Structure formats: structure tokens, C-alpha cells
């Protein structure tokens, strides 16, 4: 019972912190609204582009490598999802789990080596 209470209270605290984290910007911006001046003019609301009039669409095409890095991130982040429980339970699992995990990580390292060889990691 007590453990359950600690568990519930802890997540209650997390929720409280979330509320505070959202409330602070909301309250501060609301207070600011009462204090700050409001003198709109067309020039103020244009997009900044080093002093010249903005041209073309701002949503420019960007390097495709960003997507590739995002994909790599997903792969290795999922790997850590498997590594974390393994590391926590390592004391009970012993050498067999170590070898198993080594095989799993080696496969991913092969992937990394392949990406390296294919010059995916090079940013040019």
C-alpha cells in the first residue's frame, strides 16, 4: 500500500511540475500584456531578412541529410530502449545476456559502418 502511495504521489508531483511549467509562461505573458505597449504598424510585422524585403517562400528546401540523420536517430534510440532494461537487470542475467546483447549491438554497428562507408555521415 505504501509503495503504491509513493508511486502515485511521485507521478502527482510530475503532473504538478508540468502544470507549473505551463503556467509560468502563460501567467508571465498575460502579465506582460498588461504592461507592454501595443503600437502596431505594418513594418513591424514583416519577416526579418537582414533589412531587405523577404522574397520567395521561407519554407526553403533543405538538405536531405537531415532526414537520414533522423532515421539513424530512430534506429539507435530504439536500441537504447532495449539496452536500458538489459543494463538494469544485468546482475541477474549474467554472461549469457552479455553475449546476446553483443550480437544485437554488433548488427547495429554493422549498420553504422555501412552508413559510414556509404558516406552518409559526411555532411557535404
Amino acid at each position, binding site marked *: 500500500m*505504501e509503495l503504491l502511495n509513493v508511486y502515485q504521489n*511521485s507521478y502527482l508531483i510530475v503532473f504538478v511540475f508540468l502544470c507549473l511549467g505551463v503556467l509560468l509562461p502563460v501567467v508571465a505573458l498575460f502579465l*506582460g500584456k498588461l504592461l507592454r505597449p501595443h503600437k502596431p504598424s505594418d513594418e513591424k*510585422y514583416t519577416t526579418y531578412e537582414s533589412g531587405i524585403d523577404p522574397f520567395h517562400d521561407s519554407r526553403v528546401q533543405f538538405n536531405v541529410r537531415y532526414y537520414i540523420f533522423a532515421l539513424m536517430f530512430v534506429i539507435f534510440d530504439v536500441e537504447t530502449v532495449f539496452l*536500458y532494461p538489459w543494463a538494469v537487470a*544485468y546482475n541477474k542475467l549474467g554472461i549469457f545476456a552479455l553475449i546476446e546483447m553483443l550480437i544485437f549491438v554488433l548488427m547495429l554497428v554493422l549498420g553504422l559502418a555501412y552508413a559510414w562507408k556509404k558516406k552518409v*555521415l559526411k555532411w557535404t
Partner: protein
Amino acid sequence: MIEDLLQSNPGWANFGIFFLLGAVLLLVVLGFVTYGILAERKVMGYMQLRHGPNQVGGRWGLLQTVADVLKLLLKEDIIPKLADRPLFILAPVIAFAPSFMVLATIPFTDKFQFADIGIGLLYYIAVSGLTTIGVVAGGWASNNKYALLGGMRAAAQMISYEIPLVMSVLGIILLSGSLNLNDIVEAQKHGWYILLQPVAFIIFMIASVAELNRTPFDLPEAENELVAGYHVEYSGFRWAFFMLAEYVYLFAMSALITVIFLGGWLPPLSILGFIPGAVWFSLKFTLVLFIYIWFRVAFPRFRADKLMEFGWKVLLPIALANIFLTALIKTLFFS
């Protein structure tokens, strides 16, 4: 006190008490940010043979940051006409809220701490990853080329360095066998993890600077190439919340390094145990903070391509090797 509270029945009364305590912590953190910025400017000033702020608030410039914040509060709020309005308003909140949420699990001393959840470390890493979304959303919503480029760069950098960051911590989890930050501190009674896991510490330190977007890795907001990166279009208090998030993360990251590598509130020698844990925690915390400021003064900015290559080709393989070396040593010699 907090232990009794944690063991009592959860309800609205508890919610109220936690809310008040959380608000106090929020004020403490805001005070830290105020004087952390001042300390940073002062230390940087002296390292560069100048004085730093010394006009507002006496010889030490003690009211400089307060004045800055008040000025920001009085700035006119400008949302560009082309911006994606709802997202533009939401982005600073998305960036800031997680930075405060991560503080919920950090044990400052054995008495002064908030949530005691079993997956404390994982919680920190998972929640801190959410800030990237706020940064990208801010860059996208601004509808500005510089902001978009800065946001994309920030996202690429933050996700790339998150991998070595989470991997380096695995060595510690292997040794302590727990993700709970209290257990991790207890496990350091016989030796801090900076001594047992020096490689992990170095990787974590480098990756955390990149996660914080601080100077050797401050590409997302590189002033002289992207003007200010993802927050070019932000002004006044909306901008302040991006900055605030950055400094609250600095606080959180220094506290986390103190907890997982430097033994938290434990004294370095057991003879020195008569000095309260809060003193030890703040001493170590200040040291880590000083090192972060020192980094900022000492190193020039990385080039964007070198930055990505360094993260994937150097830090990630070393972090992986460190995990298995740790596991192997543990199995062969300590089981």
C-alpha cells in the same frame, strides 16, 4: 517531510502542497537563472580581462539581470504576419515546460527532493528530449529562412548528441543496477562514478554541452551565420522563455552530473561527513557550472559538418565500447 507526504494517501491536499513546494522550487530556479547569467557574464569577463556588468546594482552589477528581465517584460509583443500564429505562441511553452519538469526527479540531498520514481534517469532523458520539438516548432512557425535553418540544425544536433548521451549513462546503470537517482547516489558510497567511469563522464560532458546548445556546439543559434537561429522572429517575453529553458537546462544538467557522476550529496571522504549534504551538493554543482562557463570561454565554435561527424563517428563508437567493456569487467572480476 517529503517522505511522509510521499507515503500519505494521494489527493487534492497533496496536490496543493506539492504545488506550493513546486512553486518555491520554481522561484529558486528563477533566482538561479538570474544570478547564473550574471555569474556567467562576470566569469567570462574576468577570463577575457575585462570587468563584465558593473553598472546596475553596485560594483558587482547585482541587478543587471533583473533589469534585463524587466526590460524584456516591457517589450512590445510582435508576431510576424506570415508566422503560423498558434504554433508560434505554443513553441516557447513546449520548449520551456520540459526543462522544468525534469527537475521533479533530481534528488538535491537525501531530504530535499521531490518525486522518487524508479525510472528517474530515464524520465530525465525522455522528457528533456521534448524540448527539441519546441525548438523545431519555433523555427518552423516563424516562417523565416534563418529560423527554419536554425531549427533544423538544432534538431539534427540535439538528436545526434542524444544518442551518445544516453549510451554513456548505460555504464553507470550497469554498475548501480538501478535507474532510480537515489539508488545511484547510494551506490557511490564506495567510489564516485567519475572514477569508475571516466570515459562515460567525458562523453557525457561533451554530449551535454551539445544538448544545451552552448558554445563549442552553439550552431543552432550561431549569431554570425544565422543571426540567432530558431528564435530570430521572437522578441520580448516569448524570446525570454527560450533563453530561460536553456538556463533551466543548464541548472538541471549540472545537478544531474553532480548526482550521477560526483556522488550527489555524499562527502568525498567519510571523515568529512559532519558537513551537511546540501553544502557538498552545492559545491559540486558550482564546480560543474563553472566548467560549463569555462568551456564557453575556452573553445571556438565547431563547424556544422565536423560537429555531426564527431557525434556519430567518435562519440557513439566510444560510448558503445564503454558499455561492453564495463559489462565485461563487471562479469569477469566482480561477480
